[in-house]
């Protein structure tokens, strides 16, 4: 059981990265971005393209660090993929969502458009890479370490936790200490007043998409390292992402972090009683329970 909880924390930290971005976008633009799951997929595949394509072509050595499953190529690919997906998110906003906003289309039209965008991203991935599962390093043995309480954990998974922690701290500092970060929180709080205060909200929206997309990309790569890459991986994250976001109160990034961890742990622990394929349903049931008991989430005011 302790082991399942630890695996749940690993999965939950990945969900958190996605949920934070989803919550940021939801908080500022007030619509459900159904393409967010596919940002995770895009991130994982862009990194794959870098690792197996561009970086090997340039001649970056294909080493691994100690008992980790990756080396320099991934270190380089990781931030590049975050930037690329951040730009994809911004581009979608400029091409699609901003046009709809300017026309005064409602939140549902925006959500619908994001669903279309989700499929466009996924279809492009399917056209390029096909429908099979892929690995960053096929065929690599990945031995687990034995840590106290009889928990087996792979070095990759420990690193995943540190990477997530690092990114969350970085985001926290950005939001609390920088002018742009504060303006972002102000815009999420009260967009009209932000405008009155002279904050350029369109620029804030661009930053929000960029950060949301980049964090999702990071989540996708980490999942790819931990498990595998699959064109539907992000779609399968969508329900857990929304469950985490709603549980942690929409717009609250610390709530999204806690929500993500909770959902991740619940999903992994459920595998002790249920088939692992039901993980998605577990996230869904939790979400329905939250909607029934406390629809505004743990940090929401009644």
């Amino acid at each position, binding site marked *: 059981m302790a082991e399942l909880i630890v695996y749940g924390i690993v999965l939950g930290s990945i969900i958190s990265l996605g949920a934070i971005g989803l919550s940021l976008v939801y908080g500022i633009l007030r*619509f459900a971005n*159904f393409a967010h799951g596919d940002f995770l997929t895009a991130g994982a595949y862009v990194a794959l393209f870098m690792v197996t394509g561009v970086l090997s072509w340039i001649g970056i050595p294909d080493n691994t660090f100690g008992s980790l499953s990756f080396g320099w190529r991934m270190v380089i690919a990781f931030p590049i993929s975050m930037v690329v997906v951040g730009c994809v998110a911004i581009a979608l906003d400029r091409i699609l969502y901003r046009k709809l906003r300017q026309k005064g*289309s409602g939140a549902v*039209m925006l*959500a*619908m458009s994001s669903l279309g*965008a989700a499929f466009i991203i996924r*279809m492009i991935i399917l056209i390029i890479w096909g429908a099979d599962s892929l690995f960053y390093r096929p065929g690599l043995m990945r031995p687990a370490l034995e840590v106290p309480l009889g928990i087996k954990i792979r070095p990759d998974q420990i690193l995943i936790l540190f990477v997530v922690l690092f990114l969350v701290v970085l985001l926290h500092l950005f939001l609390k200490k920088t002018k742009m970060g504060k303006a972002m929180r102000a815009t999420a709080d009260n967009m009209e007043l932000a405008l009155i205060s002279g904050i350029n909200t369109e620029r804030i929206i661009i930053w929000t998409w960029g950060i949301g997309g980049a964090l999702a990309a990071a989540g996708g790569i980490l999942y790819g390292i931990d498990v595998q890459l699959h064109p539907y991986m992000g779609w399968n994250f969508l329900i857990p992402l929304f469950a985490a976001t709603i549980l942690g109160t929409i717009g609250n990034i610390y709530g999204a972090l806690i929500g993500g961890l909770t959902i991740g742990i619940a999903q992994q622990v459920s595998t002790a009683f249920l088939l692992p394929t039901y993980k998605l349903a577990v996230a869904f049931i939790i979400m329905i329970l939250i*909607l029934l008991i406390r629809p505004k989430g743990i940090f929401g005011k009644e």
Partner: protein
Amino acid sequence: MEIGGIIAYLVSLAIMAGIYAVFCLGLNIQWGYTGLFNIGIAGFFCIGAYATALITTPKPTGMYAHYVQQIFGLNLPFIFGLLGAAIICGVIAFLIGIPTLKLGEDYLAIATLGIAETFRLIFNNEHWLANGPRGLMGLPQPLQGLVDPRHYNYIYLIVVVIIMVLIYLSIERAIRSPWGRVLRAVREDEVSAGMSGKDIFRFKMQSLVFGAMVMGIGGALYAHYTKAISPDVFTPLYGTFIIWVMLMAGGSGNNKGAILGAYVVWGIWIGAKFMTDFLPYTLKARAPYIRFLLVMILLEIILIYRPQGLLGEEKKVSKLIE
């Protein structure tokens, strides 16, 4: 292809488009007239199809029971399958509506999406329920003995069109009644309808359930057409989004538009299939993805440049409110 083959092909195309038109009509009740954002149509599609399969097939016996498991098999006629599918979908919609209809539109969307995914998982994993991933086969077809099996599709096309028209007429009737006027008022501006939150909830619930029942009938029609169903059919793409594209293209809030959209988009979909046949061999395996990519781009273009669709909304009813 000879003439007979082409006609047979067109008939099969017309049947599928007609089945999709039924889904579009169901979605139009929910979205077009009430503004309910259901993105789990595939869930009702799936439940409707499985419901009729269990109702109209016999429970396997003897050797056969080793290969096909199903929770029950009632061996009842087609019409009971349709009714059962509608009723079960209505009940499921009611249960989803309870936690979500009082909240914003997005919540209903996420919940319906979750239901669709969850039911697909359940039918895939629970072999005792409906034979797991292999699904159920041998569904009976109405009026089967009337003609040569090779020409049966003509009969089924008539069945589909009759049911589609009946649903169309009943929705038109409902929408033009005081009930329909209230629905639109609910959609346009909930406050101006001058009702309590409880009333609004009740009307939304009725619309959600009504729409889901129509979708259940659509699922049943599909199941009896293909005679075999398995969980992998009811994917978000085939089961939900293509229907949204159809309704958006035809014109939400317009029942004629819903039917027109189904036929036009299904025509484009099939046409795109012929086009992808010319792709180089290496890309052929991925042709369906290219088609879906094109359909999704079509959706985005409609949303931005022609959100009212081909026909736009019929204004007759809303005039009565103003």
